[in-house]
């Protein structure tokens, strides 16, 4: 009888292959970080639904597929025109394109940057920017316990590296486009992004994850953001993987004094999706806003876990997540707000609203407030509901068909989050994605006409 390898072993075996492949071509310090990560992963193993953090999301379907790590950079004849639908029209931006996790020089558009600023592939920066990269990768932004972060670190090969020195305002958004192409075998990529924003600097980062064709693949991404004092960062993540894809991603943010971080997380694709957003407000006056919108249908599962650590006094966090679930889709929202003993005068507000469009769609929503300071303001609210029948009747009584009325109200529900997107071409793109097939494409036209 052939012995069946368990799922963890598959990844351990792949790690050995990676080590052999990299032999000598990778700095020893990064090899140490990889090795430490794989041993953490090996001890920890994949999560099960017995883990509190994975109670409603079973990764069993992910483990049934033996994903193959992508060998090297394969552009597969990809041309800029194939990417056009993911580039937000004429958005003026700096764009780094990654194909199956590997940086593509020819598809990217990076412009010359003043000295001290670095925007490019992390693989290319390992030697030149070790002093900036090593401590952050080694710390994992406090996500050591997350098995997929460990896995990502172990298989770390490429991703984006953005380094802004103090006092630097980047006018154009930086777009990180992660494209997965289908292949015979299901593949896995582990993009690792590190964004370090110096004191008083400002930047908008847009991460998008897209599947070029249908097909199963696995994206296991980690993005670390370090916000210096007074830094202002606007972060967007658009998840539009193929409908058979697996997407597991962690965004870890560390905020210094009076920094301001805003995240917009839009999740539309993927068969099994898990987004972790962890923000640590680590000095007085820091403020963070987490907006989220997820839309799932069919058999999709989209899980959003957020954790905000109020570590110091006088910090504010605002969190607003909305979900729309149709068919047999399942959604999970878990919003943890952890107020440390020192963090007096914390102001934290969390809201989660879910719209269930079908009787078989399900949501598990859980606010989790852990408060160890006594002079704080923390509120949370969760609602789960259906479309308002009175509103549907009102629209129908004006001649609008039932289906259109439902679509219009669904769009209106989502629009609350979409309207918070500050970059107009991205807002238009998300609107378009939501309206696709909903015959409501005139919204923009009417809005502009007035």
């Amino acid at each position, binding site marked *: 009888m052939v012995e069946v390898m368990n799922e963890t072993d598959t990844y351990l075996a792949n790690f050995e292959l990676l080590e052999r492949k990299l032999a000598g071509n990778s700095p020893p310090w990064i090899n140490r970080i990889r090795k430490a990560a794989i041993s953490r992963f090996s001890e920890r193993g994949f999560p099960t639904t017995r883990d509190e953090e994975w109670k409603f999301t079973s990764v069993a379907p992910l483990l049934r597929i033996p994903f193959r790590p992508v060998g090297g950079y394969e552009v597969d004849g990809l041309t800029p025109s194939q990417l056009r639908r993911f580039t937000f029209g004429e958005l003026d931006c700096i764009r780094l394109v990654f194909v199956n996790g590997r940086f593509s020089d020819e598809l990217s558009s990076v412009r010359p940057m003043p000295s001290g600023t670095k925007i490019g592939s992390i693989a290319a920066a390992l030697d030149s920017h070790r002093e900036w990269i090593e401590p952050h990768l080694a710390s994992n932004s406090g996500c050591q316990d997350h098995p997929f972060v460990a896995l990502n670190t172990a298989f770390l090969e490429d991703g984006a590296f953005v380094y802004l020195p103090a006092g630097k305002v980047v006018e154009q958004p930086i777009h990180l486009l992660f494209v997965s192409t289908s292949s015979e075998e299901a593949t896995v990529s582990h993009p690792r992004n590190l964004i370090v924003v110096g004191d008083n600097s400002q930047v908008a980062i847009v991460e998008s994850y897209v599947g070029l064709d249908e097909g199963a693949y696995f994206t296991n991404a980690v993005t670390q953001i370090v916000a210096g004092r007074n830094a202002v960062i606007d972060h967007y993540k658009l998840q539009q993987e193929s409908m058979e894809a697996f997407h597991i991603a962690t965004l870890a943010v560390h905020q210094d004094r009076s920094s301001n971080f805003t995240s917009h997380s839009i999740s539309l694709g993927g068969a099994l999706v898990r987004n972790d957003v962890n923000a640590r407000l680590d000095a007085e006056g820091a403020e963070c806003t987490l907006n989220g919108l997820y839309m799932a249908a069919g058999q999709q599962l989209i899980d959003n876990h957020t954790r905000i650590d109020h570590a110091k006094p006088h910090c504010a966090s605002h969190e607003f997540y909305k979900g729309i679930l149709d068919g047999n889709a399942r959604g999970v929202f878990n919003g943890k707000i952890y107020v440390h003993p020192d963090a007096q005068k914390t102001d934290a507000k969390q809201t989660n609203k879910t719209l269930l469009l079908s009787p078989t769609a399900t949501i598990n929503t859980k606010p989790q407030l852990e408060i160890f300071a006594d002079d704080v303001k923390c509120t949370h609210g969760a609602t789960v509901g259906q479309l*308002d029948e*009175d*509103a549907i*009747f*009102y*629209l*129908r*009584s*004006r*001649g*609008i*068909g*039932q289906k*259109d*009325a439902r679509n*219009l*109200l669904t*769009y*209106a*529900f989502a*629009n*609350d989050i979409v309207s918070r997107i500050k970059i107009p071409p991205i807002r238009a793109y998300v609107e378009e994605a939501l309206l696709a097939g909903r015959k409501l494409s*005139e*919204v923009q*036209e*009417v*809005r502009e*006409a*007035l």
Partner: protein
Amino acid sequence: MLEVKYLHAKVGDKEILRGIDLQVNAGEVHAIMGPNGSGKSTLAQVLAGREAYEVTAGEVLYDGKDLLEMEPEERAREGVFLAFQYPVEIPGVGNTYFLKAAVNALRKHRGLEELGAKEFLILVKEKMKLLEMGQDLLNRSVNDGFSGGEKKRNEIFQMAMLDPKLAILDETDSGLDIDALKIVANGVNALRSKDRAIIVVTHYQRLLNYIVPDYVHVLFNGRIVKSGGKELALELEAKGYAGIEEQPELALTMNS
């Protein structure tokens, strides 16, 4: 235009309409009056196609067609309009988008070309003058955060935009101060025409000083118990509904 025959309707187990007979012709304005709970709003909602009410007997013919067979949106497209007693707030749906979608749904049904943004705006501006409405209401979500008066005005504004053949105004006067009442009434009067029928449902006679009806019907306990000309409204104002409630036998004579 509208023939209501022996109409019975219930919500849950409660029978609310218990045999309504009513005929409304083009060009006429009918007022339906009655105390609270008499079934006035139910009648309005049933005519608009509200699914919460179950029609248990009787029929309604609209231009000779079976109105009760039609979906609410079909009725609207065929020219039936209900001005809601409590207009629904729809946050996130722009008033302008909503109106344009409605106008074009009706035009499409009538075989007319859909209005472009520009022509639509010309129409909007013309009709807004009628109701003395501010442009800002257009840029807001449907009825969202509107005052009571603004909501009612918005209903009549929609009526002007949709140009119905049969308009049913459900307590359009309730909650309006006298100035707002005059504006709304002027709007409705401007829309009176020989091709259009209007049914005004109201609890109080006050509105009828401004929208003078051709016929007045008194609804009590799910039946029309008395019909007459506009003077009937004044009589009710003077005597109140008490007089009607005391003579249930009247219902029998009226309906037989």
